[in-house]
């Protein structure tokens, strides 16, 4: 997470929003959070201030995009519903979106695009249609430049919606306005962007490409993983059955049932709902299908968090369907209140639990030790590296030699660098002046037989970390050679 901030700081010293001096991760950051970080690094020197303000701004941008979508959907009660995007029981959402600020650009692009399609369908204003058409096409192209993610969660599902819409012969006011051509062009635009990503950008910038994805035999386990992932994103968690976890889990399962009912209502012709609602339900279903099929039939690496960018649409799907059901007003209000209170309750439980956890207290001690002893360069594994840079306001530069828990041994090869979220010049440049090597206690214990430095050489340690400090890089090398 700190890696994104380092990238933002690096870009603030350069022109543009892309850099060849950075090892990116799974996707090239084009229209992404680095732009916000970069902007605030122009104004503030404190990295903490940049993180704080950027977090708020990014969340506000997400809420703004959501407001636009809700307005186009004609869905009422925005403030209460939008609060669910900040206060909800999902640990995964908390970690990925609110804490890591990941996928916020993808979510915003999806909210805005779906909103713009609906506005495009509704409006008779030719000029507005042209402007929307231009923005959506440009957005699809730029999104494609970043990689596959936006295509998988938005543009491909939209194309399938279009096909299903035609096959099922759904008609109504909302289908006027040639939105079908729009969906096709957006898909082609995003694919063109992705083609540029593979053929042109990948030659200049370093990031993981997904060109080696292969089909595999269908596995039911993949579907199970996707299902469990969805439940966890909705707030489900493992824990003691005789605890608050049971209440949270009942809420998560109820939410899942509610999503399924809403989808059925949205897709069924028997239910008298608006075509915008139907369109949204179709999109949500298609995104879910694409996501499930992708991980069931290909060897694409799966992680629960990947479902967040489309599962966030379950919020408008549920509330729009409640709004449009033929229940009496009082029943609707009652349903509304119960759902909101359940989500808020789970969210408050999570906040109360999280507010007492300070995940960085131990590494802050390491940072303070290094700064007070004027040691500003050194080595660590991935999860302990970039965070040191952020905590020290960029004073400490860390060469990440291997992923956390990896098998690479710093003592065997100090020159090996993990090409993931760090400066590319770390490959050729060596740290100057005093050099530190930071290991977690687990890493130290796992490597203890191979560690060439003696425990007596330990400069600092606490409950979590062991820190070695050497006079210079050669001294570190001699320490390695000593064994």
């Amino acid at each position, binding site marked *: *997470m*700190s890696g994104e901030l380092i990238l933002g700081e690096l870009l603030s010293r350069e022109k543009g929003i892309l850099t060849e001096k950075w090892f990116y991760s799974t996707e090239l950051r084009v229209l992404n959070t680095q732009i916000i970080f970069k902007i605030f690094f122009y104004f503030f020197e404190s990295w*903490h201030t940049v*993180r*704080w303000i950027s*977090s*708020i701004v990014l*969340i*506000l941008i997400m*809420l703004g995009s959501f407001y636009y979508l809700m307005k186009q959907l004609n869905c009422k*009660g*925005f*403030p*209460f519903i*939008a*609060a669910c995007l*900040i*206060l909800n029981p999902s640990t995964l959402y908390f970690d990925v979106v*609110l*804490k*890591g600020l990941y996928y916020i650009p993808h979510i915003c692009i999806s909210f805005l695009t779906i909103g713009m399609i609906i506005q495009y369908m509704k409006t008779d204003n030719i000029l507005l249609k042209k402007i929307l058409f231009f923005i959506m096409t440009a957005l699809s192209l730029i999104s494609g430049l970043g990689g596959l993610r936006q295509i998988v969660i938005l543009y491909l599902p939209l194309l399938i919606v279009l096909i299903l819409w035609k096959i099922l012969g759904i008609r109504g006011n909302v289908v006027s306005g040639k939105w079908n051509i729009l969906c096709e062009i957006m898909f082609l635009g995003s694919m063109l962007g992705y083609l540029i990503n593979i053929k042109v950008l990948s030659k200049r910038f370093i990031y993981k490409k997904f060109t080696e994805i292969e089909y595999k035999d269908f596995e039911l386990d993949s579907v199970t993983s996707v299902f469990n992932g969805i439940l966890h994103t909705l707030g489900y968690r493992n824990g003691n059955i005789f605890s608050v976890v049971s209440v949270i889990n009942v809420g998560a399962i109820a939410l899942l049932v509610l999503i399924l009912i809403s989808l059925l209502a949205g897709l069924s012709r028997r239910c008298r709902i608006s075509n915008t609602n139907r369109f949204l339900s179709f999109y949500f279903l298609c995104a879910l299908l694409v996501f499930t099929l992708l991980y069931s039939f290909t060897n694409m690496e799966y992680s629960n968090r990947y479902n967040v960018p489309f599962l966030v649409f379950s919020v408008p799907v549920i509330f729009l369907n409640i709004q449009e059901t033929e229940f009496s007003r009082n029943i609707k209000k009652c349903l509304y209140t119960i759902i909101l209170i359940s989500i808020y309750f789970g969210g408050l439980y999570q*906040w109360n639990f*999280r*507010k007492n*956890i*300070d*995940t*960085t207290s131990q590494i802050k001690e390491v940072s303070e030790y290094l700064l007070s002893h004027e040691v500003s360069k050194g080595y660590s594994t991935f*999860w302990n590296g970039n*965070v040191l840079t*952020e*905590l020290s306001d960029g004073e400490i530069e860390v060469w990440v030699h291997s992923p956390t828990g990896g098998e690479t041994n710093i003592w065997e090869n100090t020159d090996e660098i993990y090409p993931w979220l760090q400066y590319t010049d770390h490959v050729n440049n060596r740290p100057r002046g005093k050099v530190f090597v930071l290991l977690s206690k687990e890493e130290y214990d796992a490597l203890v037989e191979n560690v060439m430095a003696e425990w007596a050489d330990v400069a600092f340690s606490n409950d979590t970390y062991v820190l070695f400090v050497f006079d210079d890089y050669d001294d570190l090398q001699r320490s390695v050679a000593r064994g």
Partner: protein
Amino acid sequence: MKKKELIQTLSWLWLIAILAIWGGVFVETNKLLA
């Protein structure tokens, strides 16, 4: 103020409060850093 307007105002205040608590308790205190 009508009941509807009151609820509307309260709903916005609720959203702002949630955002403020989020920013104050979690982001500002650096508890989210990892």
